[in-house]
Structure formats: C-alpha cells, structure tokens
C-alpha cells in the first residue's frame, strides 16, 4: 500500500479550454500538416464539426493531469488511451485521474476526458514510478556535472 496514494484517490482535475490558436501551435511544433486541425473548411468537407483536436494533444493534456497531480518525484512509465469521439476547438475539457492501484513506488490511474455536456471523449490508463531525486542529484554532483 502506498503511503501517499490509495485506490480511489482523485488527483486534482485539469480543466482547460483548447483554442484554435493552440491547435495551430500544436500542428506547428509537431510539424503536422493534416488540414483537419487548422483548415475549418476542409475539416467540414471531411464531415467534422470544426477544427479537430489532435489525439496527441488530448493525450498530452490528460498526462499533464497526472504529472501535475502526482508531483515531481513521480515519472510516467506507461500510457494507454482510446478515443471515443472527436472534439472541436474551442472546447473546454476536464481530465480526471483516479488511482486504481498503488504501492510504495508505483501507482496506476484511470484517465477520463469530459467535455461540458458530460460526454466522455477519451479514456485511458497511466502508470507512474517513484524516483529518488535526492540520489540522482547527488550522483550528478559527484560526477562533476555543472549547469
């Protein structure tokens, strides 16, 4: 049993409004030329209701809910998710992470994305392992690492 987390614990939810600006920047930084993310007319011609959120952006936001909720001594080990429906910007989304397994150095969480209508658009699981930051910093110091 973890001394920090117990099964059923909820991390603070991450609520965020995804805008077309964010989609544009996400397309740019990932060098993604797929038009459904930045060309609304093309997206509608493909049958979408507007600019589609990137699946990886949704995953990144979901994982943020975990990294920010667990704190810096935890590192993400595995992520798995499935998209149930597309989302279109602008949209407010909330990501919640609930602990489903925990021991001293590993936690597993269930991830859910909801939009304001209460629809679940994304489901997944994340596992994280605890690190020993103090030891790592000490080893770097011993090795003569500088900033």
């Amino acid at each position: 049993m973890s001394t920090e987390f117990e099964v059923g614990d909820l991390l603070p939810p991450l609520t965020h409004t995804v805008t077309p600006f964010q989609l544009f920047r996400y397309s740019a930084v990932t060098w993604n030329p797929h038009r459904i993310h930045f060309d609304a007319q093309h997206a509608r011609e493909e049958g979408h209701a507007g600019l589609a959120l990137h699946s990886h952006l949704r995953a990144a936001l979901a994982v943020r809910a975990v990294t920010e909720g667990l704190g810096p001594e935890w590192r993400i080990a595995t992520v798995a998710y499935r998209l149930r429906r597309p989302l279109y910007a602008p949209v407010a989304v909330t990501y919640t992470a609930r602990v489903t397994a925990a021991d001293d150095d590993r936690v597993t969480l269930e991830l859910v994305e909801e939009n304001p209508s209460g629809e679940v658009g994304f489901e997944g699981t994340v596992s994280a392992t605890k690190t020993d930051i103090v030891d790592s910093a000490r080893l770097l110091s011993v090795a003569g690492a500088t900033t």
Partner: protein
Amino acid sequence: MSFTPEPGTALAAYYEATVPRVGTVLSRRRLGMLDATTIGRYAMTIGAADPIHYDRAAARAAGYDDVVAPPNLLAAVVEWGAGTPESNLQPDGTPVDGDMPLGDGLGLRVMGAGEEMELVNPVTAGAELVIETTLDAVTPKNTRSGPCVFITTSNTFMSADGAVLNRNRRTVVLRDPVEEN
C-alpha cells in the same frame, strides 16, 4: 462477425494493399537530434509549466541530463527534419509515404484512435534519435459511423547507441472519402 470493406471502394483498395504488409518492418531510420527549443516549444504548447522542460539547471536538479521532453513528444511529432515538400502532401495535408501507411492517393479520411506508450528512458535535449516502425495490424470494422479500417503500428524510438527511449503502439482509423454531390 467478420467484415471486409465493400469491393471497389477506396477502403477496400487500401485494405487489400496493406494487409500483406502486416508483421513487416516499414522503416528504420535516423531522425536527427532533438533540441531544447523543440522540447520547450512542445511543453509551452501543451501548457506544461514545469521548468524541467525549459531550464537545464532545473532538469539536472531533478536528475535528468538536460531539459526533458514531456512524455508523448516523440509520439506526437508527425514529420522529422525538413519534412515533406508541399507538392508531395496529399489533399488532406498528410504526407505521402509517411511512417504510417495512409493509402496515398486514395483520399481516405484519417483520425487518431488510440495509443499505448511505454516510456523506457527519459528523452532529453541532444538525443540523436532513431525510429523503427513495424506494421502490427490492419483491421476492418463496420462502426456506427460506417465502414472503416483500423491500422496499428509500433514505433520504437532509440538513441543513436541503440538504447530504447519509447515504445509506442499507435492506432488510427481510416474511412472512405466523402462522396461528392
């Protein structure tokens, strides 16, 4: 109950051409160096404020060699290096002959459907990246939104010395083009 796309459709042509490739290595290539600017820009774009993504000293204090990438950066990048000339992009903008076979020239509609990621080692600035892509599965289904094909690839991201950084298993869904009126 098994389902196969209707003969004569773009989806059927894609399915028939792609199924024989299941189990094969589609590519193995060098991607180049991941720099600190890309890591910082990715973190900024997703709203990740932790200084380990921007500040080398903060990253080192946290036990990393250099600024560290948010967990799904490698998985999210569509094109590495200079990318595909605009003249070689498909009408929907997707690159021809990308890491994932998307039915070049067939006009299929593409959407991400899910992913499994194993983050084996931290991905830090300066990493010289290599990717190997294997085609895992090509699965036709008849869904509520119509016939489609799910394609799953495995990407293994490695450093130049062969150390595995990430293993990602990604699935996208392909649908027939929208019919012209």
